[in-house]
């Protein structure tokens, strides 16, 4: 599992998130601590509203914590401003979302190339074509998202997530919007590419079967980490 030679790519320590409501402060996450080794796959599970997506958004630097530390591949995420976090994401992070989140005015190929272009890379086309081939869409590269099925759109999103060879991939319910056949296809693609690229996978899901495919499981309930299957977690305490 987490070999000793592996380094901690994600370190989370005493992470809390509260939001202000009319009734006062509402805790969303309380005192979460864990580490993830490079190349591991971790499923984050929990009931609706437990705080899974909030944890994902904090880990990916899409939102800021109220308290605690997040070290992402050596960078202290909690100390960075929005611009620096965006730059960090461009270099090290890939995403797959439940609702695909493709840019409607760009073709499949252009959507895959988008992260590379945002990062200033000029030579992304071949890599994008390769990735699209890997996800079985080399015949659909000039199609727009509205011309693709849900399964195909998610495959484009997966190809996009792996361009630029990110160190960490965040996936939020990647198969929830798809039928079981397409869901299975997407899941296997995700794990296959993850393995090929040696990417660390953080996967938020309701699906116990999907969670079971990951090396570790973090269970969140009412904003608290109630269960982990990793010895690493125990180390952090």
């Amino acid at each position: 599992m987490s070999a000793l030679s592996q380094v901690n790519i994600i370190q989370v320590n005493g992470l809390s998130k509260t939001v202000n409501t009319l009734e006062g402060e509402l805790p969303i996450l309380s005192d979460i601590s864990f580490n993830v080794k490079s190349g591991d796959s971790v499923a984050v599970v929990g009931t609706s509203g437990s705080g899974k997506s909030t944890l994902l958004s904090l880990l990916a630097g899409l939102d800021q914590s109220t308290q605690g530390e997040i070290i992402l591949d050596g960078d202290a995420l909690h100390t960075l401003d929005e611009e620096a976090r965006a730059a960090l994401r461009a270099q090290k992070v890939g995403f797959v979302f439940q609702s695909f989140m493709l840019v409607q005015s760009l073709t499949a190929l252009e959507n895959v190339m988008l992260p590379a272009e945002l990062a200033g890379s000029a030579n992304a086309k071949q890599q994008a074509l390769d990735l699209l081939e890997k996800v079985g869409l080399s015949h659909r590269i000039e199609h727009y998202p509205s011309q693709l099925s849900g399964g195909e759109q998610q495959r484009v999103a997966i190809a996009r997530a792996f361009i630029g060879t990110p160190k960490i991939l965040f996936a939020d319910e990647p198969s929830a919007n798809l039928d079981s056949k397409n869901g299975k296809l997407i899941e296997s693609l995700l794990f296959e590419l993850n393995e090929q690229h040696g990417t660390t996978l953080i996967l938020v899901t309701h699906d116990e079967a999907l969670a079971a495919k990951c090396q570790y499981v973090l269970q969140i309930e009412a904003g608290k980490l109630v269960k982990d299957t990793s010895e690493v977690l125990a180390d952090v305490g």
Partner: protein
Amino acid sequence: MWAKLALKLFFREFRRGELTVICAAIALAVLTVLTLSMVTDRIGQSIAQKSSAFIAADRVLASSHALPQSYLEKAHSQNLKTAQLTYFDTMLFANDEMQLSSVKAVSPEYPLKGELKIKARLDAQVEIVNQGPSAGNVWFSESVFYALNVKVGDTVELGAAQFTIEKVLVEEPDAPFNIFSSSRRVLLNSADIEKTQVVQPGSRVFYRQLYAGEESDINAFYAWLKPQIKENQQWYGVKDRQSPIANSLNRAESFLLLAGLLGIILAAVAIAVSAKRYCERQYDPVAMMKTLGGSRDMIRKIYLLHLSMVCALSVLIGLLIGFGLQDIAANYLAKSMNNTLPAAGIKPWITAISTGVICAVMFSIKPLLDLFDIPPLRVLRRNLGDRLLVSKVHLAMSAMTVFLLMWLFSNNLKITAILFVSTLVLIGLLFLVSRVIFGGGRKLGLRPGNSWSLAIASIQKRANANSVQLISFALAIKLLLFLVVLKNDMIADWQSQLPNDAPNAFLVNITESELPVITDYLAQKKIQVSEFYPTIRGRVNAVNGELVAREVSLQDNEKKDEEARSGIGRELNLTWLTQSPAQNEIIDGEWFSESATGEASIEESMLARLDVKLGDTLTFLIGAQSFDAKITSVRKVNWATLKPNFFIILSPDVLADFPATYISSVRIETDQKRDFSELLRTYPTVNAIDVDSFVKQIQSTISQVSLAIGFVLAIVVLCGALVLISQVQASLGERMQEIVILRTLGAKGRLIKNATLYEFLLLGSAAGFVAALVSDVALFIVQREMFDLAGKLHPHIWIIGPLVGGTFVAVLGYFMIARTMRKNTQGLLRSLG
């Protein structure tokens, strides 16, 4: 790198039609302003050129003293054409007959604008010439031939000289419209003035210098002249004169101005709506780009480049279409007016481009700033950023921008303020109304599966979005109703002043003894005659016992009517009446009671000129006799009507002992002219002033101006309709998700289409009703304050407003939704992205 991505996104968005609405809105703003400005400019120039004929020049300098030759020399040096006129009254002698006549001595350049109409003999055809009589010759108006019993070729004595009667003077372009001046007109060459020896020190002579040329040259000359103008000199153009022409021209100009202003407001609304819609549709891509590592700076650059490109492209499109449209319009108008329109200047282009750019920047900046602020977290929380706060500062800045644009365009603070404030009031009212409508509907029972229930539920659910839509719909409807009603009122008012059976001649100088005989004669010959007014000439000598002559003669106001000014320094025509004339409105005090004694009613401008107030006592001098009258009422006089009007009317007792003459207006049809000439020959002391050609000139100008106004209105209505279309289109975007859900759940297309139809019907009707109410209030104010029309309410638009608003918006919404509904459910789902 960002530029490549930005360009790719721009062209893709453009091809997908995402930018079409915002582009169309900006182009609409530009083409509206360009078309209106150019058409207005060209028509304005043409009308000004045409109307300059009414004073035979572009500008006139008038005085009761000889005017310096140095003025003319300076004018020549500034590329202006000039002419000189000298007016005096004198006796004419011929065939043992004598007659008092008004002589106008003209220099060879006269007229600078317009033309003279003459006849070789009394029974000959009318000819058009561009020069007055040569030295040694005179031209007489028809009535002088009758009065002196002479014919063309006869000799006449004028002062110390003899002249040959060369032509019959039919029409001068600048014939004075003053029924108290003589209709017996004589045209003389100014070189002959000296030999008549009529003009001596102390003679009552009036002088005019006429100027014509480019407006910029005239303005430069006036800048030089202005400091030298003395109290007894007056500078004016055709629009400064109190005449029906000046009045209609000023009103027409105000209307065209208003139309342009409303076009700007409509365009601003369209841009605001479409920019907001476009930016909202970019929330997801921006959130995604931020998530994937796009920096805020890069996103800012991408979308600012989009804005610049949209702006440049749409301004170009707007200019091209606007130019083409105005060219078509100008050609059509020129053909209808039987005239050519002069080319427009550079100003409309500058106004149009700056309006497009300012509108585009100001109305997209807030949605763009919101877009830049979209958090990347939106990729996980889909509704994040949907409820961004409305910035009061931005609202205030947008309002200020509209205000400044309107002010810059109109150069008229008053009208800008009226329109702007009424629009703000409308928006405020609409917020209140929308709360009532959207809140009140909750009490209604909702039954699923019923289109009306669905429509009401939909309206309630989107209370905020619907409030905005209601305001936009109402704004467009208000502006259109406002213009249509104003145009109708204005043209109706012109037509009521000059109906087809308007008087075309005045009878002046009828004695008390002649009155019954003339009345009988007119009745017998079936000549229409209005009431007879008694008149007597008198002078205001003192106010509250203090002499005023000197004080009054020093008054200087460039805008005041020339005839009125000279009238006050000398004798005025006084009358006495028991009832206030119909074309007069009492604005202060009360009209004479039956038992009134020693009272006077004064016209408002005279009140100001004499610096008097209600209750002051005026001392009048008639011949050697003087009497007092107390001011008990102040009147507003409609000078545009072709009826005798008076600065001062006295209570009947005051002038009971003075001999008066009577005046009246008559309508003489072509077949009655011989009978009318017979009347004049029988009573040679009675003067007849033929204003037939004058009335025709006014009617022709008014019909041309009406045509121009109708055209401009059509353009604004088109713009308003396009604004409504863009609003409906924008609002449909917001409804798409709901439509998809309903469709997916199996709702029939008919149910959805009907629900949309009813929803838009309710929204459009509510907007139309409120728009009608607010338009009516704004109309009331604008008519009184700007157009000098009687303010009145128009209850019919309270019904038309909701009917038109509801129908138009509903039909538009229905057709747009029907087009969407043609897609299958899968297609609809995918189009949501």
